[in-house]
């Protein structure tokens, strides 16, 4: 699993997002350099998901700017180099595991889509269940498939929103190994985490959001562990 093209960096300045009267993100300004693996911590509602969705080009910021790669705005070409895992599975329940992967492989114009799909099904350990409907899968199996879907097109930037959700201990180890390999291949990673020390070990940098603002960044000297330690409210 290698990265296609140069890894993408990400830079935001004075980024703000509000929903009605609620400020989800306040004046975020930071840069993630190509090849970095950043773990993002914070309470529920601290703005992690909102930030990741803006970075994926799914949602527009209210003000401020966000650059991915050298582009000013997130164009379709850039969007197609991003691997995205969201809260929800983003899978069709009425399609089989194989059909789901094939659909996204075809959409993304991957030439050997069938080979690529088979390869990922093997890696996720879902090869035997490839012809079962996703509806019949457990949460952990769906999460593995979701991650496989995000890696299909060998993206240059991974945006993972709590990728460990629903995974059991072997699943977490598999995910950590996968992330490590992707990172070593040069892909930029930005993932929000809730605990899960094994996944945090992949990170080369950590940031913490509180109420939509950047509260801590390991670049300013703090250790990754202490940045990721979310204080009890």
């Amino acid at each position, binding site marked *: 699993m290698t990265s296609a093209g140069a890894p993408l960096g990400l830079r935001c300045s004075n980024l703000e997002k509000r929903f009605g*009267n609620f400020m989800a993100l306040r004046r975020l300004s930071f840069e993630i350099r190509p090849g970095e693996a950043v773990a993002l911590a914070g309470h529920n509602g601290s703005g992690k998901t909102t930030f990741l969705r803006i970075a994926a080009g799914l949602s*527009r910021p*209210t003000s401020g700017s966000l650059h991915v790669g050298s582009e000013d705005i997130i164009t379709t070409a850039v969007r197609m180099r991003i691997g995205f895992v969201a809260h929800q599975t983003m899978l069709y329940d009425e399609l089989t595991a194989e059909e789901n992967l094939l659909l996204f492989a075809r959409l993304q114009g991957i030439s050997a889509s069938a080979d690529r799909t088979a390869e990922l099904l093997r890696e996720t350990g879902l090869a035997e269940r490839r012809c079962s409907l996703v509806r019949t899968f457990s949460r952990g199996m769906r999460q593995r498939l979701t991650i496989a879907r995000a890696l299909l097109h060998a993206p240059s930037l991974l945006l993972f929103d709590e990728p460990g959700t629903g995974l059991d201990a072997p699943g977490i180890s598999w995910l950590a190994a996968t992330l490590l390999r992707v990172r070593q291949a040069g892909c930029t990673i930005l993932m929000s985490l809730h605990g899960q020390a094994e996944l945090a070990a992949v990170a080369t940098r950590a940031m913490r959001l509180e109420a939509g603002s950047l509260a801590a960044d390991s670049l300013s000297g703090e250790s990754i562990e202490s940045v990721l330690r979310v204080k009890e409210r």
Partner: protein
Amino acid sequence: MKKNLFALLVVLMLGWAAYASFFVAPTENTMGVIQRIFYLHMPSAIVAFCAFLVTFVANLLYVFRRQQRWDWLAVSAAEVGLAYITVVLITGPIWAHPVWGIWWTWDARLTSTFVLWLLYISYLLLRTLIEDPHRRALASAVYGIFAFLDVPLVHMSIRWWRTQHPQPVLMGGPGTGLDSRMKIVLLYSFIALLSLMIFLVRQRYELEAMRGQADVLRREAEAA
């Protein structure tokens, strides 16, 4: 000050238009006094259409520029336009009853006006059902564009369908034309009603803008 002067001007124009339509315009030969409602009915319909045109342009500008003021303008003009259309739909039957002997007929113009009214009711209804201001502005702008594009189609289909519609009085052939005094009064009422529309849209826009600013202040208070 400027606003008050404009308001005064609008009131004077409306007063003059009302006076003129009752005392300056001659009484129509066949329909009699009731025909004078025409000076309110017909210009209102045109002014309503002007208001919806403003909504359409504001919708387009919002989609491409994403500035909230275009959304404010769109909703203001749509509400005022709807008020005018309502006037048209009320004065129509009042005029029709003594002349045609019925309150309502599914005649082409009446029916298309009614569909127009429904379209913009739906537009305003949609706006009440989306919470987030940006999402509301964007979704309703696209619906507003759809609605406006539908207007000529509605009009054409209903016209083809009900071809027995009475000839328009203004643009009809020779002999059906209006008395020159009638035309002048019609022009007066049109200008007066148009000025009122502009005044109302402005007032409504300011209200909407204040609402938007109140939101910003509330947000800042929360942030502090």
